[in-house]
């Protein structure tokens, strides 16, 4: 990418390229985890192994210096094999997982729409809707105004008063999706949410993401489905083993990625 070095005019970089304003800048992002490796290698028939298990702090270098600029109105696909660091990169962009070195800059705080564990498993779905909305910074009136719509969207009317720990993973993913999309987002990150739930819910959520994308400035889509990447993204970045391996037009990057696999 042609970077300006003079710093004369604020959007010198943008004028030489067909881009809008930069909204997210990843500047040499590194993420390192320290994991206490308490496991031991399992040797068949070895009883004494129990006494000599090794405990050591292992450093996992999940991202090794990722840099790119995302511009307004881009839909960026993020691809890579399992464990390549895609989700870590996305959580770092939202600020939920801090970078150990380097930095992420953004116009507004990016929002992550992901699947994962329940928010507060002991509380009911409806309590989680209220708390999730309040945590995102909505006011109580705003949440009450949207509550029925959220419940309707998730299709969980019959289960909404049950604790979330009793939900199936598909149900809690639907609820989280409904909560997260109740708010307008300037920068949105969708982490494989499209593959969540049954066919009917997938259609509903794809439609909702399209709607959000039209209103949001920039969307990142993390997915293993090359079809949905091709359908929705005009630019794709490929992360492999924590390194940015390719960044460019979706069709080029996806073709290269499919050859690699």
């Amino acid at each position, binding site marked *: 990418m042609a*970077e*300006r*070095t003079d*710093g004369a005019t*604020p*959007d010198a*970089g943008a004028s030489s390229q067909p881009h809008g*304003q*930069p*909204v*997210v*800048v*990843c*500047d*040499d992002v590194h993420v390192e*985890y*320290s*994991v*206490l490796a308490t496991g031991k290698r399992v040797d068949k028939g070895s009883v004494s192994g129990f006494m000599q298990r090794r405990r050591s702090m292992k450093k996992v270098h999940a991202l090794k210096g990722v*840099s790119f*600029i995302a511009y307004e109105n881009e839909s960026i696909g993020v691809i890579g094999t399992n464990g390549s660091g895609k989700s870590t990169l996305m*959580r770092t*962009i*939202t*600020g*939920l*997982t*801090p970078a150990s070195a*380097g*930095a*992420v*800059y*953004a*116009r507004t*705080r*990016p*929002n*992550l729409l*992901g699947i*994962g*564990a*329940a*928010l*507060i*498993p*002991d*509380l*009911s779905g409806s*309590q989680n809707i*209220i*708390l*999730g909305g*309040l*945590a*995102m*910074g909505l*006011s*109580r009136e705003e949440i009450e105004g949207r509550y029925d719509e959220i419940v309707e969207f998730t299709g969980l009317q019959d289960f909404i008063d049950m*604790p979330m720990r009793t939900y199936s993973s598909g149900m809690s993913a639907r609820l*989280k999706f409904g909560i997260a999309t109740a708010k307008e987002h300037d920068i949105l990150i969708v982490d494989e949410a499209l593959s969540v739930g049954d066919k009917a819910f997938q259609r509903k959520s794809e439609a909702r993401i399209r709607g959000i994308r039209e209103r949001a400035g920039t969307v990142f889509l993390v997915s293993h489905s090359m079809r949905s990447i091709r359908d929705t993204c005009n630019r794709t970045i490929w992360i492999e083993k924590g390194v940015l391996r390719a960044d460019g037009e979706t069709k080029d990057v996806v073709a290269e990625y499919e050859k690699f696999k």
Partner: protein
Amino acid sequence: MSENLSQVAASHGLERVGARPPLGAYLGQVLRRLDFTLSLARFRIRSENERNRLGMLWVLLRPTFSALIYGTVFGFVLAGMRPENFVPYVVVGVFLLEFFNSSMNAGAKSIIHNTALVQSLPFPRMVLPVAKVLENLLNFVPPLLMMLGIAILWGSVPTWDWLLLLPLMVLFWMFNQGVALIFARLTVHMRDLSQLTPFISRMIFYTAGVFYDPAKILADHPMLTPIFDWHPLYEVLAITRGLILDGYAVPLDYWWRFSLWAVVMLAVGIVFFWKAEERYGREN
């Protein structure tokens, strides 16, 4: 490359994501989530109660059982050393310490047991330990009233002085909140600490004069006096007993000593917790 990127970011007015805001702005954000904090505390209490058949009654039963056990055991052991007005004496000690212990333990778990929440929604993390202590404060109201009832049953006559319990409980809450904030961060750095907190709270419990009167011990060991004079929990217990029990006087200097504890603890807790705000999302 790196310098250019940060220049691009700066020239377009982009801000660093997840950067820890200055303390004032941070506290402002925490205050703006007051509704979230309160709802979190209320919902948690409700769901906790719904899981047990006796529900809210457990808030009273738990400290009552501990008071019964400690009272019976140490009532026998101490025999002649038993403090005056023994039943309400023990009740005051056990009930107040319960609020402290539950706050400390809940604070210690408030971040590490909420990783799913911390990693999926952005909000100032201080909300979690604050909500936990608030939950314990609300749960503390019924035992507090019961404690007053027991004092009256054992012959205390309410006076206007009892109203001084209100500022004392505010100080107590500040103190507990400070401790909870400190432990909330410490357990993120050292998970093993959450295994140790029960022992720490037990040590505080046994040194605070819950069922014995330190004054009687101090008569033989005068060099221990400064330790008890600066023991924050003993200070709370001594003031409370002085206010509501017959035969006890409020050690007046304990008021400023404990106020100092409360203010310093809360301030240290807030700053200490805020300093690591960027760390809480990292998995370990």
